[in-house]
Structure formats: structure tokens, C-alpha cells
């Protein structure tokens, strides 16, 4: 069924448009004037001003991997982060921990773990999904590089950014 959109009845002043055009121009010039005389607050000028000091605790920066207080890589290559990652920037190649290692009980570790920071959207889902508390979004926000390769964070780089995190996961400690 046809529906007729009701059109407003315009007065002749509205019909010639010019008054509203002038009104519009007045609004924009007002903004321009305020900017010129510094009456408008503008955004933070990034490289000179930084907000490191007032960054909130829940800030989500670059995802990193952490080791526990015994030096064990917390990641066991369960690949849940790889699964949940919306832009699919995580790639894990799982491997088996050799029997002679002191962490042999854990059995599995990531042979390769890389996060493609050109794709990462800093959503934090990897941190949320991790059952081993192994991946955390730290406060590094200035992830830059001059090549794509430099933004491909491999395992070494991820541990370098992440460091050590104590507590929380005790299930891999040897049984009495």
C-alpha cells in the first residue's frame, strides 16, 4: 500500500531558502570564531601531550604473554584465544613439552605463538577467554613499526612485553 509522506507546508520565506542558508552560515562561522579565539576545547595533542599518567586500570593495550613465578610459560596452547579472536590475528602452533623438562607435567606448550598487531583490535577477548591466565592486555598502546614484520609479535616479543605474573594458577604444581 502506498504511503504518502506528509510534507510540511512551507512559508514563502522558507521556500526561498536564503534565510535558512544565512542561518546555517552563521552557525558555522560562530564555530570558526570560537576556534580562532580559543574558546573551544580541542583534543589532546598526542606526541607532545600523553595520557600515560591518567590511564585507567582497565586500559586495554597490546596483548602479551606472561610467565609464572617459576619461569613456566603459562600458555598451554589450548588455542581458545586463536578461536575467539575476532580479527583472527593470533596463530599458535602447539607442541609437546619433552619428558625431561621440569614442566613435563603440563605436557603442552606453544611452539610458536604470534599476534599480528596489524590486525589486532585490542578487544581483550583473548584475555577474557584464557583458562590459564596466560595472556594479558598490558598498557602498551604505541605499537608501531616500519615493516609489517615488526608488527608481527612472535613469542619472544610477547614474553618481553608481558613479563612475569605471579599467583592465580596453581593446578600445574606437582601433586603431593
Amino acid at each position: 500500500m502506498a504511503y504518502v509522506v506528509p510534507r510540511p507546508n512551507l512559508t514563502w520565506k522558507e521556500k526561498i531558502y536564503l534565510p535558512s542558508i544565512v542561518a546555517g552560515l552563521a552557525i558555522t562561522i560562530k564555530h570558526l570564531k570560537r576556534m580562532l579565539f580559543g574558546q573551544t576545547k580541542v583534543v589532546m595533542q598526542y606526541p607532545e601531550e600523553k595520557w600515560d599518567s591518567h590511564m585507567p586500570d582497565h586500559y586495554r593495550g597490546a596483548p602479551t604473554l606472561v610467565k609464572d613465578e617459576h619461569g613456566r610459560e603459562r600458555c598451554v596452547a589450548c588455542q581458545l584465544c586463536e578461536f575467539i579472536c575476532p580479527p583472527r590475528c593470533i596463530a599458535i602452533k602447539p607442541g609437546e613439552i619433552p619428558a625431561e623438562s621440569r614442566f613435563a607435567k603440563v605436557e603442552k606448550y606453544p611452539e610458536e605463538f604470534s599476534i599480528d598487531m596489524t590486525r589486532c583490535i585490542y578487544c581483550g577477548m583473548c584475555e577474557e577467554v584464557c583458562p590459564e591466565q596466560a595472556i594479558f592486555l598490558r598498557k602498551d598502546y604505541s605499537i608501531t613499526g616500519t615493516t609489517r614484520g615488526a608488527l608481527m609479535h612472535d613469542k619472544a616479543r610477547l614474553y618481553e612485553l608481558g613479563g612475569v605474573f605471579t599467583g592465580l594458577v596453581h593446578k600445574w604444581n606437582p601433586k603431593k
Partner: protein
Amino acid sequence: MDFFFQLPWWLIVTSLAKTIFLIFLVVLPMVSYTVYAERRVSALIQDRLGPNRTGFPLTLLGFKKDFSPGLGGLGQPIADAVKFLLKEDFVPGHVNKLYFWLAPCLAMMPAIVTLAAIPFGSYLFGEKMVVADINVGLLFMFAISSVGVYGIVLAGWSSNSKYPFLGGIRSTSQMISYELAMGLSAVPVLLICGSTGLGAITDYQVREGWLLVPFTDGGLSLREVLLWIPLVLAFITFSISMFAETNRLPFDLPESETELVAGYHTEYSSMKFALFFLGEYTAMIAGSALIVVLFLGGWHLPLIPNGANQGGLEFLHAIPAWIWGIVNITVFFAKVAVLLFIFIWVRWTLPRFRFDQLMKLGWLYLFEIALVNIFLTAGILAFTK
């Protein structure tokens, strides 16, 4: 060719000097800084800052720090130019190569050529400050600027892709429609000044006062007051048509980003795209200059003598004439700059017309108003003779 060699050598030299001066030292820098102004003004209107920190990326050359000389963003046009020159000049495989290459030239060249007839100053060292002071200056400008539409049409057609094609078609109908209104709205000026030479029109305004501001000659007659009514109408219709002719918002349908990606220059990149870009801004400058010449007295400022130390206040004649020549040129470009600012201001205020609205405005209103305006002017002229 014979005719060319029979010309006196000094005419060739001075014309060349004026051309080079005008194009490379005035127009091209003006174009790039218009682009810069566009970006800054739009930013300020939208409560942003715009490009304000261009420096030299010395770190690319191995230095520790970039050099930022504190010019704000004034280096931005240079950076833009370098970027355009260094970008990959990509020609898609499906285009018609000849016209694809020809189109950007056709967009840029007419816009520059029209500037030849503009008297941008009075005299400098006895030389008239116009490249070609032809007595059909206004017709010349209309004729050449219409050629600019070919660039856009060819770009749209040769790109062999739907959005450029639609952009090209829109551009054709738009320019043809508005050319009419523009030409007709300039007729009252010709009726009053009695000449189509832009120099003559300027001279008339120096003598009798600017057409839009008739009291600049020091007095107001009844005739001037009566003529002011059709002249304001002519000014409004002419300016609106000029917006449409230069494809500026609110009439930028040929390239409307939200509908046509980028319209006729969708498939263009690098310097070829830059030529369209420059062409648009050159046309904008030419249009502003034309408005200045037709309605705002050209290079003239009340009380200031011209470059041959004529007119103006008597005691100013003591200062060397060439200084007044330069002042005249400056006044002209200052007027143009104000108009350019209005162009930009309007762009960042008004939304785009719908195509049917655009056609309706051109054919049903501007055209009629301009036509009636001619008879009105003629009537007033006859009545006040």
C-alpha cells in the same frame, strides 16, 4: 605562424612574463593554499585543528629527529604536492587510454586559460596587468570555461566504470544548465558598462563606483540606487551559478562521495587525480576573480591611485607609481581571497542538493530570474537616460 613572428618582441616577452608570473607564482601557490585553507577552515568550523604540524621528515633520511620549523601546517601543500607526485600512477586495465590521459589535462587547462583575460591589477611599470586585454573578455571566459566540462565527461566516460560514468553525466547536465543562468545574469553588467572587455568593465567601476557597492565613487545617484536592485539579483544568481559551474558544494553532484565513491575521478590516482583537484580549485579562483571584476570593482580600492598614479587622493601621488601598482594587485587578490573563503564556508555549511532539486533550481528559478533581470536593467537604463 607569420602573424606570430610579426608581433613585436617585447609584446611576446611581457606576455610570457605575465603568464609565468600569474600561473606559477600566483595561481598554483594560490591553488595549493586554497586547498590548505579549505582543510584548515573546515577543521575550525568542525571544532578541529586541521593540518597544523607539517615538518620535514628527516628521520627518513637517517637523522635522529624530524625538523619542524614552527610554520604550523603551512608546509602541508608542499607535502601534498610531493605525495601526489610520488604516488603510483595507476591506469586501470579497462579504461580507454587516450581519453583517460586527456581528461585531466582538459580539466586543468581551460581553468588556467580563463585567467588570461582577468585584469588582476592596473599598471606596473606602465604595463597593463592583464595577460590578454581582449575586448570580448567575458565571452572568452564563458567559452573557455565551458570546455572544462569535457575533462569531466571524458574522465567519466573513459574510466569505463559505473560511478565515474554517472558522475560524468551529472556533470554535463549540471554545467549546461547553469551556464545559461550564469551567462544571462552577467548581461545586466554588460548593459551598464557597455562592453564585454573585462578591462573596460573595471575601468567603468573605477569611474562610476563598484557595481555592487555603487557609492565607492563618492556619491549616489538615483540611477545607481535603481540599478542596485537588478545588480544584487544578478550577483546572487551569478554566484550561485558559479558554485554550480565549479562543482562546489552544494552542487558537487558529479563527485558526491556518498553516492558515487568519487564521481568522475574514481579511477584516477597520483598526479592525474591532482590535476582534477587543481583544476577544480583553479576554476574556483577564476570564478572568484570574475565575480570580483564584474561586481566588486576589480583591483580598485577607493582613494587609492592606480599603477600610473592616476585617480585616488592627490597627496598619495608623491609615492612611486609602481607601489600603487602592487597595492592594486594585492587588493585584487585580497578580494578574491575573501570570495574563496565564502566558497569554503558555504561548502562546510550546506548539504548537497538532490539532482532533481538542482535541475529545478537551475531551469525554473535562476534562468527565469536572470532573464527577467535583463529586461529590468534595460528598463531602468532607458528610464534614467
